[in-house]
């Protein structure tokens, strides 16, 4: 066993604390004994090598880093922790520190994993060249995503996240009567509408001369069949939701969505 100079330091235990120069790994012609960085092997490094005047600067830097690190870890902890006495009292300060760049959510498949497949479908109402109105059938957008993901070792975010998260966004920003809650509600409607326009265009929903006038979404959530060995009985109730028709602005209808 190697001697440890001072107790069992946490860093050493985790394998992080090894004081490492770089040699040994590189067998190239330049490999040589010595530190790889700009530090000189002969000079003493760290605060010990500094005169008191400069040690003040080092101490200041150390203090700033130590305080910042502690506050950041503490704030991040409070941000991911459930609502509690401290977060209720200092919620504002925590948000100020965390948002926008340190926002995070690690409830990965927790507290319970999603147990239903949500099938999102869309249909369109088109003004035909002869002045008539035509309503298309339903296009299964989630089903398209599912097919694109099947057998795909590297699914794209456009297939795995785009519609799924846009739908979650909509659900989170609307009440059960499809009324938007806050500014984000209208953002989510515009987002879904643009996804619909893009997907309908790709699916060739409109014939030459048709103008896309309105779109409508609906969803059907089906519970995942419980495993055979669980002995659970599926309640076999799929929930459906139908959104109102949304008018498509002219610029979007003319292919304004990439």
């Amino acid at each position, binding site marked *: 066993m*190697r001697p440890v*100079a*001072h107790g069992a330091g*946490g*860093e050493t*235990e*985790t394998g*992080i*604390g090894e004081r*490492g*120069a*770089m040699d*040994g*790994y*590189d*067998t*190239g*012609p*330049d*490999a040589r004994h010595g530190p*790889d*960085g700009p530090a000189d*092997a002969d*000079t003493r*490094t760290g605060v010990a*090598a500094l005169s008191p005047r*400069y040690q003040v600067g*080092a101490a200041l*830097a*150390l203090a700033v*880093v130590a305080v910042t690190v502690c506050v*950041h*870890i503490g704030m991040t902890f409070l941000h*991911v*922790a459930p609502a509690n006495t401290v977060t209720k009292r200092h919620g504002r300060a925590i948000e100020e520190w965390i948002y*926008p*760049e340190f926002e*995070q959510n*690690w409830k990965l*498949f*927790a*507290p*319970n*994993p999603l147990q239903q*497949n949500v099938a999102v479908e869309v249909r369109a109402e088109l003004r035909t060249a002869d002045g008539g109105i035509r309503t298309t059938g339903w296009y299964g957008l*989630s089903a398209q995503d599912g097919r694109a*993901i099947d057998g795909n070792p*590297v*699914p*794209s*975010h456009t297939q*795995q996240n*785009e519609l799924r998260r846009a739908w979650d966004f909509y659900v989170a920003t609307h009440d059960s009567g499809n009324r938007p809650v806050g500014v*984000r509600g209208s*953002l989510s409607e515009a987002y879904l509408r*643009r996804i619909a326009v893009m997907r309908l265009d790709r699916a060739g929903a409109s014939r030459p001369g048709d103008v896309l006038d309105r779109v409508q979404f609906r969803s059907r959530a089906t519970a*995942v069949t419980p*495993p055979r060995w*669980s002995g659970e009985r599926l309640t076999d109730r799929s929930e459906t939701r139908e959104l109102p028709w949304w008018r498509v602005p002219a610029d979007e209808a003319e292919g304004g969505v*990439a």
Partner: protein
Amino acid sequence: MNDVALSVSRGIARVTGAALGPYQTAVVRIGFAATWLLFLLRELPHRHELYGPDGPWSWSLAERLIDGNGAFSLLMLTDGRLWFEAVYALAVLSAAALLLGWRTRAASALFMTGVLSLQNRSVFMGDGGDNVLHLMSVYLVFTRCARVWSLDARRARRTEAARARGERVPDRLGPVLWVVLGIALAVVTLPGRLGSEWFVPMLLWTLWLAQALWWVVERRAKGGEPRILLDVIANTAHNGALLVIMAEACLIYATAGWYKVQGSRWQDGTAVYYPLHLDYFSPWPALGDLLSFSGTMVMLITYGTVAVQVAFPFTLFNRRVKNVLLAAMMTEHAVIAVVLGLPFFSLAMIAADAVFLPTSFLRRVGDGAARRWGRSVRRGDRVAGGDADVDADAQAEAGSEAGSEAGSEAGSEAEAGSGSGDGDGRGAGQAHVGSGA
């Protein structure tokens, strides 16, 4: 009381005297840079749909959202198509530069800029993997993550060797890069052009100024105190950021684990079955069926997942247990990559886990890679320093031959100690232990 004072001063000497965990930070750097690079290349055909001005999450929708939250994104400067392509290209190139450790501090700043610009532009396109990458791209900026396994480390060695031979090695590219980036930064952060949040622009300006300071001090005061002070500050910042990276990884697992404990499906042992049967996370349905064939199996994996996630932060106090759990978590993420169709999420999580890998293991991996690489490169590149070459090889052998974990640890510590001139005699003492192992 004396003991306390002594260990405090030892601690201070440690965190100011060296950038700790050089191999761990290097592997984290390489891991996240590779994840983002592969992701960007994979999404190349979909880039307009994801982040482009006319994508479904259009530029004006993003503008309305960012007006509210002040997130940083270069893409919000203008909705031009060319600008978008330029930012995407910047993201790709900075990821490549960071991966290789080329001008690493600048590369890491650009990497962060690219990650934030694209992700903040279309925040609803991301998932957990993007979230980890987002945070780590900021933390990496503060680290000296190119001390090993990088082009910068190689350049530093060559410069050092040339200086030892009495040659002058001017760095022409550095100042040019600095001026170019300064102009770009000025153009981009002109008052009012980028949201209300000051954090990211200020961070970039600080880095830019620090580079200049470093350069001036390096020229004026060779080996003097100002130079050492800068080194102390850089080491302290690095070690702080390393601690934050480790704490972040622990928070991820703790959160994921503790919230699961409360879920009925994680309690009744069926939870793992469900994601395997979601259309969005089952690229290989047959594989999911196979994995969930046995209820006992699913229950064991379900309980095992929760136990490992909850336990992980506590196992850091015991090296062996920590390593076992680390292997389990990396394996689980590798399985998730395939079975749930989340390769980039898994890669990002494995990169985060890698910060806890033991130095001895990382060195062995590095040695293996270097030897394989060396064989192909050395022939065309052989110049002076043949004896150092042999020496390094011998050390690598010593490291990999030591059978037991403890033995190889001692071996690597010896190399590290003898190389860095520890100053308190520990290095020399351990070198003996190392050669004995």
